């Protein structure tokens, strides 16, 4: 196997588009993440800290105010108690209220408060403790009846209380200022954070925009090149390729695009050659079929006349068989090379396989290849383009023949058809060397070939594509120790399709049908219910029928005329369309039997002219041609069953004449 060498300029190593996108997304995420982290880790703690740090001050203010209020109340009671020192119960209650409770005397959390407030809180804490102790002493003095001492300590307590109140006022003022300052601080931080976030967001958006612009610029050139390439391909230009600029995804797409272009180019080249060969073959077939027609006609006439001697008679029969064989081969070749319009039809795959085998069968004898025919006789039809399906089978058979050519004897080629579920399979197996293991992987890829320069490596690739287009597949299996086995499968046509196709219509492929009917030995690929040639009545004659025979080749015309006259027809001969029109203008004819290819005016032009001048006679035309290619383009002008392929057996020709005349009578009666 060899792949076509390709020289490509060294590619620039670049980050792939996926990597670029990943980097872009990661960078964007990191950028946004950093912004969020900055807000969460830098800004948020500051905004949190300000109110959080203010809270202990508020708690301390509340605590010290509460204590001071409570002591003020107790002091008022002590003032009252001083007036009624004999109320011991009240004094005991006051002593109890003034005693530090369980867990009491917890100092203020001065250290938690803002620095400006700490000295004031500390002093206030000291003053509340002192005030409490003084009041305790006052109560103790009153309980001992020492009113003067109590009065003296109470006076001191009042002084401390006054100082405490002043201190509390100062604390409240400073605390409020502190709170306001914190609020201003929070507002400033929020304002600054907002501005910074906004700035960085705008900057980030610009960066993303720049990155996107740069990415677009990088994408633009290769995408435009691809667009231009696709436009050229769609317009039929397979010559130019797109430039592959870098080793990234678009570079790979470009490379694959160029590969596809190469495939298309080779296919186009091949199809061009194929079409040219088909045209050439059609011309050749015309030139060959005319002499064959003359030969076969003469032989048929001579045999009908009776030949003296068994040896001579047998020689004539051999000539007749070989003529038919040559005609059949020519018909198959013409069918194979004809252009197709990709029209799926109901196809009997077994018949198609036999037809393909016929095409390559000429090699079997020379190559000493034994054909094992296991084609099943009755398989359901499949909906597929018959020409393409035959192309696939010929390709497989040709490969098998090639493989067998170099292998040891016995060389066996097996063709098998089988139905598996809703698929019909044609198996082509050979006893050749088989496919190399390394080749198996790439067997169905384009340009994979083991034939060296003889093969282009597209046969199996295209074959599989054709089958897959039809819903089938092509696969490879090893065939025993040696040999290869290719299985072409196509789906069985659905019942609806078969039912629709079973309506009494003419063959959808007139070319195939027309060339099939004259040669019973050439099987029709297309399953059709078109009207078959009626059995020829040997006893019947064409007596009295006026036939205008038009053919530019005198030997052909003469042998046909001779046959018709023998059958009792009144024959007038014309050398081309112009001559035929002349005859038609001056004489009456029941039927026109004309060649298609003629100088001056061909059969089709004659038909058109007759439709204008003698429409009734135009409806009673039969045409003969050595070229089946004409039908592809002219089927709309010529009824399919009015075209016969040369060479034709006279009994088939006679049956066709009778059918035309019968149809004309039926049409007239209906009218």
């Amino acid at each position, binding site marked *: 196997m060899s792949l076509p060498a390709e020289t490509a300029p060294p590619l620039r190593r670049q980050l792939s588009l996926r990597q670029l996108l990943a980097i872009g997304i990661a960078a964007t995420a990191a950028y946004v993440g950093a912004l969020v982290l900055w807000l969460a880790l830098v800004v948020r703690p500051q905004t949190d800290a300000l109110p959080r740090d203010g809270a*202990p001050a508020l708690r301390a203010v509340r605590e010290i105010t509460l204590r001071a209020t409570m002591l003020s109340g107790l002091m008022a009671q002590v003032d009252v108690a001083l007036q009624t020192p004999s109320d011991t119960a009240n004094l005991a209650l006051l002593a109890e209220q003034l*005693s*530090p409770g*369980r*867990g*009491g*005397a*917890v*100092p*203020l*959390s*001065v*250290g*938690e408060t803002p*620095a400006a407030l*700490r*000295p004031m809180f*500390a*002093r206030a*804490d*000291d003053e509340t*403790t*002192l005030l*409490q*102790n*003084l009041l*305790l*002493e006052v*109560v*103790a*003095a009153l*309980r*001992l009846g*020492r009113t003067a*001492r109590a009065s003296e*300590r109470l006076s001191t307590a009042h002084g401390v209380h006054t100082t405490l109140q002043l201190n509390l006022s100062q604390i409240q003022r400073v605390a409020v200022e502190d709170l306001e300052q914190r609020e201003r601080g929070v507002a400033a931080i929020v304002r600054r954070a907002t501005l910074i976030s906004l700035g960085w967001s705008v900057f980030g958006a610009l960066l993303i925009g720049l990155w996107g612009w740069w990415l677009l610029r990088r994408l633009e050139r290769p995408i435009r090149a691809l667009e231009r390439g696709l436009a050229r391909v769609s317009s039929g230009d397979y010559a130019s390729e797109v430039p592959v600029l870098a080793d990234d995804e678009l570079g790979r797409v470009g490379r694959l695009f160029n590969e596809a272009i190469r495939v298309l180019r080779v296919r186009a080249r091949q199809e061009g050659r194929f079409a040219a060969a088909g045209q050439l073959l059609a011309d050749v077939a015309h030139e060959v079929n005319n002499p064959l027609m003359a030969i076969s006609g003469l032989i048929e006439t001579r045999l009908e006349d009776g030949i003296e001697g068994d040896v001579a008679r047998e020689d004539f029969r051999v000539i007749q068989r070989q003529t038919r064989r040559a005609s059949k081969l020519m018909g198959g070749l013409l069918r194979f090379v004809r252009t197709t319009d990709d029209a799926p039809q109901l196809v009997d795959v077994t018949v198609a396989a036999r037809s393909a085998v016929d095409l390559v069968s000429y090699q079997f004898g020379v190559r000493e290849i034994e054909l094992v025919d296991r084609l099943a006789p009755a398989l359901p039809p499949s909906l597929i383009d018959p020409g393409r399906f035959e192309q696939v089978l010929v390709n497989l058979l040709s490969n098998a023949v090639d493989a067998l050519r170099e292998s040891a004897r016995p060389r066996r080629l097996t063709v098998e058809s089988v139905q598996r579920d809703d698929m019909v399979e044609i198996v082509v197996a050979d006893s050749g060397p088989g496919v190399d293991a390394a080749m198996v992987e790439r067997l169905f890829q384009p340009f994979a070939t083991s034939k060296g320069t003889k093969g282009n490596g597209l046969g199996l690739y295209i074959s599989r594509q054709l089958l897959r287009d039809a819903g089938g597949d092509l696969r490879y299996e090893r065939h025993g120790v040696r040999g290869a086995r290719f299985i072409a499968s196509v789906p069985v046509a659905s019942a609806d399709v078969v039912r629709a196709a079973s309506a009494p219509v003419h063959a959808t492929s007139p070319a195939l049908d027309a060339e099939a009917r004259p040669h019973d030995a050439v099987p029709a690929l297309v399953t059709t219910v078109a009207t078959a040639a009626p059995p020829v009545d040997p006893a019947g004659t064409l007596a009295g029928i006026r036939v205008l025979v038009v053919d530019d080749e005198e030997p052909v015309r003469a042998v046909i005329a001779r046959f018709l006259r023998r059958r009792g027809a009144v024959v007038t001969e014309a050398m081309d369309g112009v001559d035929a029109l002349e005859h038609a203008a001056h004489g009456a004819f029941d039927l026109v039997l004309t060649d298609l290819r003629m100088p001056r005016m061909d059969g089709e032009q004659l038909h058109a002219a007759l439709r204008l001048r003698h429409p009734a006679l135009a409806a009673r035309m039969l045409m003969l041609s050595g070229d089946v290619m004409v039908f592809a383009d002219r089927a709309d002008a010529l009824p399919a069953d009015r075209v016969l392929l040369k060479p034709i057996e006279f009994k088939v020709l006679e049956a066709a004449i009778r059918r035309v005349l019968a149809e004309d009578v039926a049409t007239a009666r209906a009218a």
Partner: protein
Amino acid sequence: MTRLRIRRGVPIATTLAMLVACERPQPPRPAIGFGSVGHAAELEQLSADTQRVRIVFDSSRWGDQDMRSAVTRAERLVEEPGLIGVVGHSSSRTTLAAAPIYRRAGVPLVVPTSTSRLLREESNAFVLVPNDSIEGGYIARFAHDSLHARSAWILYINDAYGVGLRDGMRTGAEAVGIAVRAEVPYSEEGDIALLLEAHASRARPDVILLAGREKDSRVIVSELAHRMPGVPVVMGDGAGGNPISLSRVVNPRVPVYVATFWWPRVGNVRDSAFVASWRAITGEHPAPIDALKYDAAQLLVAAVEDGQRTPAQVTRWLESLGRTRAPWTGLVGPVAFTPDTRRPLVMLRPTAEAIHVAAR
């Protein structure tokens, strides 16, 4: 800047790197701050002899018991370059006031003498002594077991230390079956005699439990000698500042006992060495508070010697004691800061002749 001679062939980059290295300011020597004033200079002399640390203390005339002074001192200390830890403060009240300032600055606070259980809520406070609940329970149990007391009065100074220890004493007394007949709060500046007189009508207790300080304890013992002679007084650690004050507390008519956290053990080399050094510097026998401050300072010095150079490192180092590190051994014994670490308590019995250890 050091002047360098640039040799031929020496890469300029190397030279520049050396210059930059020479220009880089040296980090300040690790500093240990003292939150209380007493004997700071002597402790500096004892603790900083290795030159590895600096002892920083506030030499202002402000007292140790003043909350405002404690707060101001803490604010100054946290600004000290190279500060890796603080020893202090002298009382529960001032320590509680200052601890948040150190916490906010991330500075560990090794507390030598403050017993307030509220300090447990300070994450950066590492307390060397048992809290007031344990101390109060120990005092009550001693009164019950050794003095066979069945009833008691609790006299306490009206601050965080006094109230906290009162709670401990009360709980301890209830636990051992001592009936608390009276609880008398007082202040240092107040008329203690008046307060005692106000309670004189109550039943005489078997023991007086006292949560006070040196000065007021002396006054109270003197008062009790007149009012309730023979009734033993068991004091908390606040009364046992130093041997001199203890000797002043002694009154022939009142048996006095003082709970403390350290007293030199006979034959203990470490204690003897410390006492000798202290005597050499001050000419006096060290008080328990001196030993505890010394331990606290030495603990921070040990952290520095172990490679800890920042407050955060020292904090983690202190937390690891008894967990991932072996406890550090000081005058008070093994020091760790796990919940199950036991702190030593000693009951002293000062007399006119000497100070005896009544219980350990």
